[in-house]
Each structure stands twice: as structure tokens, then as C-alpha cells.
């Protein structure tokens, strides 16, 4: 038999089998039994064998294209990450997120220090040059404070708590994601964002102090502020770590180093999202409500901050060892 006849005979014999494989590849991928999964892997190997044969016998054939396509489809159905089930989520929150936070710890402390220094700088700036408040506050905010009223006073008359919460946590999530993403500019974006937040906080505290409203502002931010500011620092730290990965890639290429660092950092952001949602709820329901006294707000604020530490440490999911 010559080569053409061999190829024809092989093609005739294999085509019905390939059609059967195509039909099988359309079966649902979820809920496969171990036997079915093993069968799929065997099929993948068989397709690879046939593809190698087709490349030799029929290099320009339509069959080769079909087998390549089938091979890729099967490859994509086998090379699949583990499903996001309870066990995977447990592993994420118990082991992976705490490990990622631990990696970032020095950076988080630097970001907290940066925010504190920026806040002091903002305080000093407005105490020394009060006119500069227009850089940190809108004309309406300035006008309200100058008339002895905080801009947050009537907030519940305008917007219900539920809507306010949604708006606040959406905004906080976007700010945190932005603090992370702008780290791609060699970390400078994240540093800038954290510093600006600190500067604005210090400036507003100094400005309200000049008009005797600093106590009211402190009362407003005491319930949600500790966690919200901490998360901005955490997101900023995650962003700065991206910049660090680009500046000092070590033995990896810059692209691989950036990807590796992003993979760790995104876990921290996943943990921050639910914390910010609760923060939004506190800011929508407790912070603007004048019936809550300062003591209650402080207790809520610091308890929630401690809860955040426990949540990020993963200890709440670890069984105590005997």
C-alpha cells in the first residue's frame, strides 16, 4: 500500500471515532464521575496520538485542523482550575489570604505611617494657611462648616441609609481598587493616593477644629473610619508591592514578577471587599445618625477593627490544636 492509500484508509477508519469524540466533548463538564474524568483524559491522549499521526500522514488535511481544534477543546476542558466550592473558599480565607497579608505587612505599616505623616502635614498646612482648604474641600463643604454645620449633618434627610450605604461601599471599593491598580506606575500611584487621603483627612480635621466642629467630625468617622482607613492602607500596600515587583523583579522577568505579585495581592483585595461592604453599612446607618453616642461609635469602630484583624489573620477558620 502506498502512502496515499494508507492515509485514506486511516482517515476512513478514524473519522467515525473522531465524530464520536466530538459528540462526547459536548457533554457537560461539571459533575463528572472519576471514571468519566479518566475517560476524558484517555480520550485526550488518543486525540494527541491521532493528531501526531495526521501531521505526518496528512499535513495539509482538513482532518488535521479538526483534530487540532478537538485537541485544544479537550485541553481546555482538562486544564481547568479547581472549582470555587466551600473547601476552596475555606482554604482561601484560612491560608492564602493570611499568607498574602503577612507578605504585605511591612508595606502596610509603611503605608499607615505615610497616611499618618500626610494627615499631620494636612493639619499643619491648614492650621498655617487656612485659605488652602479649598484644595481639600468643596465650596459647599467650606460654606457649611463656616456656618457651623458639618456637611454630613443632613445627609440622612437627603438620602436613605440603605442607598447611602450602597453608594459609600461602591465608592470605597472603587477607591481601594484604584489604590491597588495605580501601583502599576512603579508604586508611585498608590503612594500618591494614600498620601492624598491622609492629607485630606488632616486638612479637614484642622479646618473643622478652626470652627469648633472637630469633635463632630471625629464622632462621624469614629465608627467606620478605623477599618476604612486601614483598608486604604492595605490596598495601597498591595499596589506598592506591584511597583516593587516591577522595580525589583529578582530572578524573574518583570512580567512574571508583576504577575506573581498580582496573584498574591488580589487575594488581599478579595478579603477587603466584604470588609468595605460592612464599612458602608456602618457609614450609612450608624455614622450619620445623631442618636448614636460617641462611646457606641468608638466601640463599634474599634471592635470592627479588631474583627478585621481576626478576619485577615484567618484564625477564625482554624481549629484549635489539642
Amino acid at each position, binding site marked *: 500500500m502506498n502512502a496515499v492509500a494508507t492515509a485514506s484508509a486511516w482517515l476512513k477508519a478514524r473519522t467515525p471515532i473522531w465524530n464520536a469524540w466530538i459528540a462526547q466533548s459536548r457533554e457537560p463538564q461539571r459533575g463528572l464521575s472519576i471514571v468519566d474524568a479518566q475517560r476524558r483524559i484517555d480520550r485526550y491522549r488518543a486525540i494527541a496520538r491521532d493528531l501526531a499521526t495526521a501531521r505526518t500522514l496528512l499535513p495539509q488535511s482538513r482532518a488535521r485542523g*479538526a483534530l487540532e481544534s478537538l*485537541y485544544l477543546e479537550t485541553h481546555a476542558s482538562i486544564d481547568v482550575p479547581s472549582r470555587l466550592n466551600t473547601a476552596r473558599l475555606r482554604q482561601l480565607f484560612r491560608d492564602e489570604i493570611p499568607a498574602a497579608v503577612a507578605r504585605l505587612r511591612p508595606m502596610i505599616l509603611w503605608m499607615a505611617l505615610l497616611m499618618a505623616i500626610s494627615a499631620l502635614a494636612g493639619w499643619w498646612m491648614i492650621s498655617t494657611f487656612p485659605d488652602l482648604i479649598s484644595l481639600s474641600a468643596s465650596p459647599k463643604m467650606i460654606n457649611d462648616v463656616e456656618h457651623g454645620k458639618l456637611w454630613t449633618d443632613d445627609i440622612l434627610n437627603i438620602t436613605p441609609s440603605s442607598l447611602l450605604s450602597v453608594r459609600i461601599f461602591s465608592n470605597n471599593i472603587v477607591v481601594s481598587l484604584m489604590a491597588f491598580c495605580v501601583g502599576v506606575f512603579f508604586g508611585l500611584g498608590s503612594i500618591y493616593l494614600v498620601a492624598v487621603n491622609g492629607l485630606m483627612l488632616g486638612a479637614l480635621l484642622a479646618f473643622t477644629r478652626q470652627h469648633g466642629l472637630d469633635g463632630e467630625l471625629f464622632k462621624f468617622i469614629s465608627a467606620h473610619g478605623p477599618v476604612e482607613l486601614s483598608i486604604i492602607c492595605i490596598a495601597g500596600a498591595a499596589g506598592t508591592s506591584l511597583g516593587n515587583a516591577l522595580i525589583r523583579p529578582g530572578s524573574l522577568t518583570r512580567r512574571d514578577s508583576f504577575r506573581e505579585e498580582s496573584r498574591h495581592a488580589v487575594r488581599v483585595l478579595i478579603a477587603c471587599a466584604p470588609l468595605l461592604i460592612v464599612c458602608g453599612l456602618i457609614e450609612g446607618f450608624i455614622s450619620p445618625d445623631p442618636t448614636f453616642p460617641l462611646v457606641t461609635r468608638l466601640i463599634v469602630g474599634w471592635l470592627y477593627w479588631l474583627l478585621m484583624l481576626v478576619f485577615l489573620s484567618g484564625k477564625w477558620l482554624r481549629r484549635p490544636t489539642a
Partner: protein
Amino acid sequence: MSATHDDQLLITGLTGVGIELEIAGAGSRSYAFIIDWHIRVLLAIACYVAGWEIYSHIGSRGGSRFVQFTAIPGLVVYFLYHPVLEVALRGRTPGKRSAGVRIVTAQGGTPSVGALLLRNIFRLIDSMPLFYVVGLVCCLVTERRVRIGDMAAGTLLVVEKVSAARALNSLGELISHSGLPPEAAELIDDLLQRWHGLDITARDTLARTILARVDRSGSGTGPTEMNDSALRERLQALLSGMRAQ
């Protein structure tokens, strides 16, 4: 293992048999994005209108509750369109499907949920300052034609191969009926499928060349003397296994 060469991603499958994937360029990406953008805008408007209708039955217009019913669902649909669909459809969206591209890992596999979320988070940067300028510039200058989100997530967009089913369709019949060598049968089939789209001189030249090589019947009129319709009939006859008498 994977490598990139001339817009091709070379991956070695788990069996060691390598395969090339064509990396999607800025054009395919933009096309997919524009389709998806239209879909999500329409969905967001539909949500807005539905919310408007529902609210107009239960309350007066204006005020914060109105925003809750109308703007929020629309915005949620608009902003979560990409992450939700990419996770649910394993790296595909309707726009990507119509552009014939999909998201894969550098090894050609299906990306994880974390990777898909990460590439979407970076849309904040890629869309800067407007109209995805940062993302587009990145696509144009990077080796794998990726935007920053893809770099962070370790993903890339590849052109989907023609469906295996479509490629194999009728191949078995062609081979078994015609008795021709497989590549010749496919060539004739391709030519016949494109017959009416080809210039008459070009298709006749092609048909004569093919017939001169594969038609061994040795009887009847020679290909050089056949007209356009006779050439087509002869090719069809060859494919169906009949010999011209």
C-alpha cells in the same frame, strides 16, 4: 510550557504534543469590546426602563427610591457584565464569541476565577484616560498583544480554531465515496464550495489543474476542452465517486 513567536502562542499540551494558537491582536479585541459594550449598554438601558416601569406603579417619580429602582440595577449590569460573563462562560463573552476570540492562560488552559477577576480589576487602568487608550497602547507594544490586566492575570486572548465538528463535517463521506486521496477530495470540496464566489477564469484554471492531476478515468472530453459548467459537473462527479464515461 509555552512560548510566543510571530503572534503565535506555542503550547505543549499535557501529552507533549505541541500546538499553535493565534494571538488576537488589537483589532479583534476592539471588535469584541465594541460588541460587548453595545450589549451591556442595551442591558443597562433595559434595566433602567424596567425599573422605571416598576417604580411608576408603586410610587411617585423622583427621590432616592427612584434611584434605587432605576439607576442602581443598570449600573450593576453595566459594571459587572465583563467579570460575571467571563467567569460564567469560562473566558468568553458574546462579543468575544462573535469576534472568534477567547481568554486562555499562558498554557492554553481555562483561566481561574481569580485571574478573570484580576484582569477585570485592571480595566480601571486600561481604560485610562478614556476609550481604553492605555490598554490599546499596551496591546500594540507587547509581545503577546496583552493589556495590563492580562499581564497581571497571566492571561491572553487567542483566536478560536474552527470548530472541530465543522471541520470534520462531511470529511468521512467525502473520503469513502470519492475514492480520491484525502487532500485531493478536500481540495475539490473547497473549490466547489467557493465556486460561485470565484472569478470564472480563476475557477476554471483551478478546476482544470486539479482534474489533470486526479481524474484518471481517461475517457470523455479532456479538461482543457470543457466549459465552466462541465468542469463543475466533472468535479462533482469525482467527489461522489462516479467516473465520467
